[in-house]
């Protein structure tokens, strides 16, 4: 039953324990490594007012020990077994993962089960105070102390209205990080950390029967509960009714134009069409915006489009243009709008569509090249779309999208009245990067 490789599709089996834990296995014996990935269906969208950043801070606490694991024991035991590990928090989920030499798989399962069932037996004020400081320094390092560092946060806030569950980003605010209490963390665990709110995927050099027996042994007795509240409603109209815009005066090295366009939800055919449109317009050195702004007009040093796929709210099409010396943002914005309007009218050429599909295929192969990448994708499809097997249809779906569908989504969505805009003008004083990652990591 060995899997010959991602090109011919992953061999996937699914199981469910009596306590509701969903388990997904995919065998591949090419390398003696096994990835364990656990997605909890909780992210920053579940946070409440005054407690932004709690899901991510809590993720850090998951590495501070549980009933049978010492403070930092999780890191020590996994690395001491030759494994690598981490966790990340996004808007929609929190994931924890270990990649292990195959003969150490059982250890990773034991560790994950221990913290799923018994974290509160070890969680104390010392861990809480320490990790609060660590996370505040993570925020400073990644956002506050680098040029353009808070752009992601600002643009997200402009894109989603004030009470919307995606209005704030996973890192949270300094004030809310300061305000979080140990009791908040305990309540968060009791509400969201349960076997019936998680998917466990295990990929690589494994024996399926043995693996399921271990999962049953370690996770089977963890009680399920129905404490979880659904996230606040993230539904929004398909398009914004007017542009939202903010001017930022900061000590940044150059002018910049950034924008977020409201796009279809992840998992839809229209989201794949949007992905292709953004790739043609703004990914790589043959893209329309690169050719126009960087090569021909020479008004920009960098110009690109990225897709932030969201399932519980509209996705965002992320435009980032850094101006060249002497160029004005008016010139750049006019050129961007002209290119988007021309694309909306004409659609992609057959060659552009072929190129974009080839790029997305390579990115997909890249993600599936490691057992850890495959494990994460299986969890993603299971948690967000209910079926891990959808992973095998993801690429064929993108390759099936037509030029007219790409044009249609561009015409409907890539419009000035369907975006939030952030404009940076440099001042000689004070500073605050380019990192618009939606993930917060526990380490490194």
């Amino acid at each position, binding site marked *: 039953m060995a899997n010959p490789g991602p090109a011919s599709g992953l061999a996937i089996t699914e199981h469910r324990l009596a306590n509701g834990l969903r388990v997904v296995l995919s065998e591949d014996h090419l390398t003696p490594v096994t990835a364990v990935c656990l997605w909890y269906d909780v992210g920053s969208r579940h946070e409440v007012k005054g407690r932004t950043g709690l899901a991510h801070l809590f993720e850090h606490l998951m590495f501070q020990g549980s009933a049978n694991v010492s403070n930092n024991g999780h890191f020590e035991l996994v*690395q001491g077994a030759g494994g690598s590990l981490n966790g990340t928090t996004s808007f929609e989920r929190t994931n924890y993962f270990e990649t292990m030499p195959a*003969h150490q*798989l059982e250890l990773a399962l034991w560790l994950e089960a221990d913290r799923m069932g018994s974290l509160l037996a070890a969680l*104390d004020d010392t861990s809480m105070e320490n990790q609060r400081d660590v996370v505040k320094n993570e925020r400073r390092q990644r956002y*506050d102390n680098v040029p353009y560092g808070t752009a992601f946060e600002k643009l997200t806030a402009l894109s989603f209205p004030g009470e919307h569950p995606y209005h704030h980003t996973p890192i949270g605010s300094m004030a809310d990080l300061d305000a979080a209490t140990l009791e908040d963390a305990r309540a968060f665990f009791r509400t969201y950390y349960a076997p019936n709110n998680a998917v466990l995927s295990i990929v690589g050099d494994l024996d399926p029967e043995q693996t399921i027996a271990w999962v049953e042994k370690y996770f089977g007795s963890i009680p399920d509960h129905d404490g979880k509240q659904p996230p606040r409603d993230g539904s929004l109209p398909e398009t914004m009714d007017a542009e939202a815009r903010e001017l930022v005066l900061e000590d940044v090295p150059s002018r910049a134009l950034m924008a977020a366009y409201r796009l279809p939800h992840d998992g839809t055919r229209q989201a794949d069409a949007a992905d292709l449109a953004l790739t043609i317009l703004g990914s790589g050195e043959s893209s329309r915006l690169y050719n126009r702004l960087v090569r021909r007009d020479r008004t920009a040093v960098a110009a690109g489009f990225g897709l932030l796929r969201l399932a519980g709210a509209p996705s965002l099409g992320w435009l980032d243009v850094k101006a060249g010396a002497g160029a004005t943002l008016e010139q750049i914005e006019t050129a961007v709008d002209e290119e988007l309007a021309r694309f909306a009218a004409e659609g992609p050429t057959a060659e552009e569509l072929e190129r974009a599909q080839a790029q997305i295929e*390579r990115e997909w192969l890249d993600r599936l*090249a490691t057992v850890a990448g495959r494990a994460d994708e299986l969890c993603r499809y299971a948690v967000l779309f209910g079926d891990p097997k959808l992973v095998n249809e993801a690429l064929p779906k993108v390759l099936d999208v037509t030029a007219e569908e790409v044009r249609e989504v561009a015409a409907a969505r890539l419009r000035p009245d369907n975006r939030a805009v952030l404009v940076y003008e440099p001042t000689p004083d004070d500073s605050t990067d380019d990192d618009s990652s939606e993930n917060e990591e526990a380490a490194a």
Partner: protein
Amino acid sequence: MSDTPAQYTPAMDFHPQPQPGTPTPWAFPAPERLTLANGLTVLHCHRPGQQLVAVDMVLDAPLAAEPEGLDGVASILSRAISEGTDTLTAEEFAAELERAGATLDTHADHPALRVSLEVPASRLERGLTLLGDALRVPALPTEEIERLVANRLDEIVHEQANPSRRAAKALYAALFADDDRLSRPRAGSTDSVKRIDRDAVKAFYDAHLRPSTATAVVVGDLTGVDLAALLESTLGRWTGESVEPSVHGPVVADDTGRVVIVDRPGSVQTQLLIGRIGPDRHDPEWAAQVLGIYCLGGTLTSRLDRVLREEKGYTYGVRAFAQPLRSAADGSGRGLLAISGSVDTESTAPALEDTWTILRTLAAEGLTDAEREEAVQFLVGVAPLKYETAGSVAATLADQVEQYLPDTYQAEFYRQLAELDTDTAARAVIAAFPPDRLVTVLVGDASVIAEPVKALGIGDVTVIAN
């Protein structure tokens, strides 16, 4: 500190920590070699299941070969080779590359100019043809080179504003003499980049890019590929007169203990970069040094983060590392040894004080057997994970070529690591980080941090403007 965790009695069944199964033997892959008719050396390695094939080129165009006053010409050349050929414009070349689902990354560094192609196995021939044409007949168009020069000038401004880039620039300037190319930014400064034009780039290409001194490393699922024939018909079309390979000068640095503060008013954090130079991979102590440095600062349970992050909360993470700078076949090369991270502004002096305490304790007491054991288990055990992809294997093989190391180096390194004892690792890391021979660069708000740092007595403090 009121609540005790004891009240949270878990309802699950516990089991003893499981013991490992039987490990599957794994070794770093051994490449095979061949030489094309044009003199190009090829290392290749079949990795079943790796559908993305990696082709890493090592080109003998070291930064030290750049003409006087033209720092950055190697970088501009590296960026210009993908800007069109004899038959394709810059835009067409980029489009063809993307149509093949390929990426082409280039980087000019002190030892060599590197070009990395990644392409799905199904489109390997198209990828190799484009790579071959870029090396064989790059158009190096004047207008694209003007643009790349202008972009580089803008990029310098962005680097200057980025704390970690700024710290690296200051450290290299402090460690190395002004006339050593190592002292100056790899991609050039504003003054040198302004002087670069098409003629300079073409002259550098003509002088240094030759198949006889180049190596291609090809790794991935090569099932059904007649590699020798495929390479002859692609990279094999690149010709050029045979030249003598470059000779690299010895690396020397001034590691007198001192502090350089790059003033960045208003910074909410201070970027730390504490460094000197030491052995490269030719040194018999290299594996011991890797092991010891991991114990000092390889992960968040290492000595530095155990205190600075997990006890004090001063930082998101501090790492110690060793990285070859420039190597030579005779072993006269050196690597950079450094500790790097960022701490909140107020914690700058306390974090440095703790760092020096950790280094002094290490020098006095060495490492423990438990630390050595965990580090060996991690470094050796993680290798099959680290080298799962074709790209990671190709990059390591290319590094070996660039550093004049035998093809069996990495496999031998893992065998050595597994056998090292605690004292050997301790001696190596103690020698690597002597507390009085470290150059400390701090990028942060001098008005807040300078006085407390002076009081630490870790060396004379100089403040420079950003």
